[in-house]
């Protein structure tokens, strides 16, 4: 399978990764190679096979509804790229 510019732009948007105009062909080619690898799956007969999401057949364990976390926003925000007044900051979003 071969990806074109439209697909690369779509994937770029979904994954929020910029692909520069001059990189599109190269990115498309490498992604297409990987999709070729995927196409090996087509021939396999998987009728009636249950999809497997986890290696072990376990069920979800539950946590008691008890507060165990204390405020540590100052510590966490020390490593934030931009924070002020207890808030993480991003460029203005118009809603």
């Amino acid at each position, binding site marked *: 399978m071969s990806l074109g510019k439209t*697909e690369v732009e*779509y*994937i*770029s948007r*979904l*994954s*929020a*990764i*910029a*692909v520069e105009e001059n990189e599109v062909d190269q*990115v498309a080619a*490498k*992604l297409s*190679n*990987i*999709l*070729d*690898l*995927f*196409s*090996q*799956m*087509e021939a*396999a007969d*998987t009728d009636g*096979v*249950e*999809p*497997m*999401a*986890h*290696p*072990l057949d*376990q069920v*979800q*364990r539950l*946590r008691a509804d008890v507060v165990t976390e204390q405020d*540590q926003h100052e*510590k*966490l925000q*020390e*490593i*934030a*790229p*931009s924070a002020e007044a207890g808030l*993480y900051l*991003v*460029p*203005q*979003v118009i809603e």
Partner: protein
Amino acid sequence: MHNLTIKQMSEKLHAGEITSVQLTQHYLDRISKYDTELNAYVSVTPELAMMMAEQADKKLASGEADLLTGIPVAHKDIFCTDGVKTSCSSKMLDNFIAPYDAHVVSQLKKVGMPILGKTNMDEFAMGSSSESSYYGPTKNPWNHQAVPGGSSGGAAAVIAAGLAPMATGTDTGGSIRQPASFCGITGIKPTYGSVSRFGIVAYASSFDQAGPMTRSAQDSAWLLNAMAGFDERDSTSLQREAVDYAAELGQSLKGLKVGVPAEYFGEGLDADVEAVVRDAIAEVEKLGAEVVEVHLPNKDLAVPSYYVLAPAEASSNLSRFDGVRFGYRCENPKDLEDLYKRSRSEGLGAEVKRRIMVGAYALSAGYYDAYYLKAQKLRRMVRDDFTKAFESCDVIMGPVAPTPAFNIGEKTDDPTSMYLADLYTIPVNLAGLPGISVPAGFVNDRPVGLHIVGPYFSETKLLNVAHQYQQVTDWHTRMPAQYQ
């Protein structure tokens, strides 16, 4: 001191013949001497190491020490370490000082194992050569032209070169076993769920599993004892009774049924590697084991299945690296979209971006069934192959990788050829089984490992098989001449 086995180190520490401070300083000195060339560490933490060594010595003196108290350890830079940079070898996390410890890190801190530093790796554990690191490739201590394997290449290299007595690694598609094979050390990936993933930066959550990387199987058993165990903070952590992974060391291999899958010795396997692996299996036979042929018919479907599923999970797991709350943020973002797209494309490397994009595509509208769902079905088929194979054998043996360590730069331009370097290890991750790589010989000056895979929770058996093999071979004790 670095030529001692862990058992000897532990005995000397407990007897007061050496101190943890001396031992730790010895390794720090070796790191200063050798690592500039090797590039196996992303960060070295001498102050933390020495402080912990002092505490370990107090613990040793008090008589309340564990077997591994005072023995230094190097953590793969994927384990969050409180107050220490945890980069995942990515520019994205180059400024990330973790505000907490991964479960594995806190477990080993409790034991009193001084932290020497954080080891280099493929960026976000995505790779098989450690070349995709933001900090540059790590060299293979046996041959500086060669890669150490990956993604836990730094960890394998520090053990091989004697720059740490023990190391932690993670294995998503072979990232402990393949570098262990390439560097001539012992590394085990336990059953999925044995070691808590809490605080390990996630690559592909339903595959990621941490394990020890050491010289010998006995060392691995001891380190795994300290790393494994139930952790309520990880929903996939197994609630089992505590296991002593060293419990079976010393058992005879008489009557052990070794399955050898015909599919693991077919096209693509380097003839010299095959010879090493077959010799190793013959050695195990001499110890009383019986070889039987088994089949893993869907082996070839494992690679495409894995390269759909792992990137799909990764595409979602790595969405949190968006330049908002931690990590790299681009200069002067003009709006929100610019902030996201530039922070991510500048902060992440080519292979990581490729996997995120391919994973997002595999989950996107119109492709989910053909790629993601199909791959999940194949995952079950691969698992069922193993279940069936283990009906007629106790363990499976074969190669870890189709070739010895390849040269730096050899495969960087062709991602899919790099993916095939994991064709023997990936099926084990799809199934969630335990697997170990044991040093078994060399092709020229490059080590080759023997791959031993067992049913769920058979770690104690795998470690004993490796241990028995290491009683009659000395591959695991060899060191590259320049590091001796």
